[in-house]
């Protein structure tokens, strides 16, 4: 994979509330056309970081950074209009739960078509062709019929595939997947992650995969960033996870139950020790 053109460059990113409470405390990272997992517990600031990359933070939050570049553009000062041109075309996002993220009153075809209508000027016939082709590419059966269905007629896994079709139909350069599988059944999770990883690879895109399940995303990413309480506390290649040195990463890696761990207590976080550790890192 070509890594030379950097898609995202973030230096010293702060996200805070108006009263001065910091939610994301100065993180640096950059990524190119690669698959990166952003892992952490709820409240660690991983979703905020991802949303700031899409310009989707609520106005009550303040974003500051020394450098905040997306596809080589300094997007921190972007107006709403500029964001609209970027979102859905160059960068796109898949959300957690298709039940809430899809519009219940519009059929699937119309929702998948919407990014095409907004960002390209194509004839209706071409659009329909593209939609059907895309639905086929995300592994949905019988696209012509599916186009006319409504979200409540689909299962969770199918809904998530539709979300992915919407995100990818304009061939964006960069995809953010915010916990794309936590609303899904266990058996379907791996299928959806597999699909995301293979489509991203095929199109040579960048992928930022957000999750709280380190073991699951490790198979589908090349690099892992670990966040804890607004700080980026560890980064390492996915292949090195089993020899992680940071205690937080070690615990996340090994806390998943399985049959071999029967009768033993699962490793849990020593939050007191971790607090002193992160304070030390901040100084």
């Amino acid at each position, binding site marked *: 994979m070509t890594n030379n053109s950097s898609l995202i460059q973030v230096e010293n990113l702060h996200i805070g509330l108006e009263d001065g409470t910091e939610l994301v405390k100065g993180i640096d990272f950059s990524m190119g056309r690669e698959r990166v997992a952003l892992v952490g*517990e709820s409240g660690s600031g991983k979703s905020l970081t991802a949303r700031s990359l899409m310009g989707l933070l609520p106005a009550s939050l303040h974003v500051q950074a020394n450098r905040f570049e997306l596809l080589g553009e300094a997007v921190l000062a972007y107006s709403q209009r500029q964001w609209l041109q970027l979102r859905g075309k160059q960068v796109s996002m898949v959300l957690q739960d298709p039940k809430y993220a899809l519009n219940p009153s519009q059929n699937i075809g119309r929702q998948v078509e919407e990014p095409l209508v907004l960002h390209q000027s194509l004839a209706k016939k071409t659009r329909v062709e593209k939609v059907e082709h895309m639905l086929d590419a995300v592994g949905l059966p019988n696209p012509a019929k599916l186009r006319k269905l409504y979200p409540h007629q689909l299962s969770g896994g199918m809904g998530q595939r539709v979300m992915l079709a919407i995100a990818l139909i304009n061939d964006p350069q960069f995809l953010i997947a915010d916990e794309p599988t936590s609303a899904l*059944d266990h058996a379907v999770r791996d299928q959806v992650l597999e699909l995301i990883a293979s489509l991203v690879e095929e199109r040579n895109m960048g992928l930022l995969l957000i999750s*709280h399940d*380190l073991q699951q995303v490790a198979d589908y990413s090349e690099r892992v960033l670990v966040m804890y309480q607004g700080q980026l506390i560890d980064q390492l290649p996915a292949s090195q996870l089993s020899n992680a040195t940071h205690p937080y990463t070690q615990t996340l890696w090994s*806390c*998943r139950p399985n*049959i071999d*761990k029967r009768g033993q207590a699962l490793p849990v976080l020593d939050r007191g020790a971790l607090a002193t550790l992160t304070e030390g890192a901040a100084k």
Partner: protein
Amino acid sequence: MSVLELKDVSISHVQGLEKNTVVHDVNVSVKAGECFGLVGPSGCGKSTLLWVLAGLNPHWSGGIQLLDQPLKPGKVFSGELRRRVQMVFQDPYASLHPKHRLRRALSEPLKLLGYQDIDDRLSEGFKLVGLTENMIDRYPHQLSGGQRQRVAIIRALLLEPKLLLLDEPTSALDMSVQAEILNLLNELKAKRDLTMIMVSHDPEVVDYMCDHAVTMKAGRIDKETFYD
């Protein structure tokens, strides 16, 4: 001694005049002190079965013997059984009253049963699940998801149940918090001589926790596993 015997149990959901049978001819026996797992994809009927055992759905047929007491279809639970079977729900955000402090929410059933030493019992319960006593006077929204699930577990345990029903107790939680809750449940099981019935869609959780499990598929038992 078995805590629960199911014989040819079928369960329906009744909507108006229509009856939709979703669980067919289930035969299961759960021994005392066991952790029994119900696994399967969504829609396979595992939660439906659990709801019957909690007395929340009377539309079933067949024979159920629960804590040495035969149940009758169409009848709600009565007497001791109401206390002896307790349930912990999937979503800790939805299972605690948002406008009541924890003290009020947790002491309500104890008051009803005429306990005198409610405050002592509450602080003992909070210690048992690893929370500090000063949290008793908080509202549910002032706790994290994992803490709230611990409170839901205290609520169930305060009534000294014999059988604890767990409906996906960790699926709304983070992986690292899940580990904490599973450890807690294992500890409690050893300390309190509890029988637990746990519904989960994650086979790994069941592999880790349970002594005996069934996999359900389309309302029927597909596979029965005994772990040793």
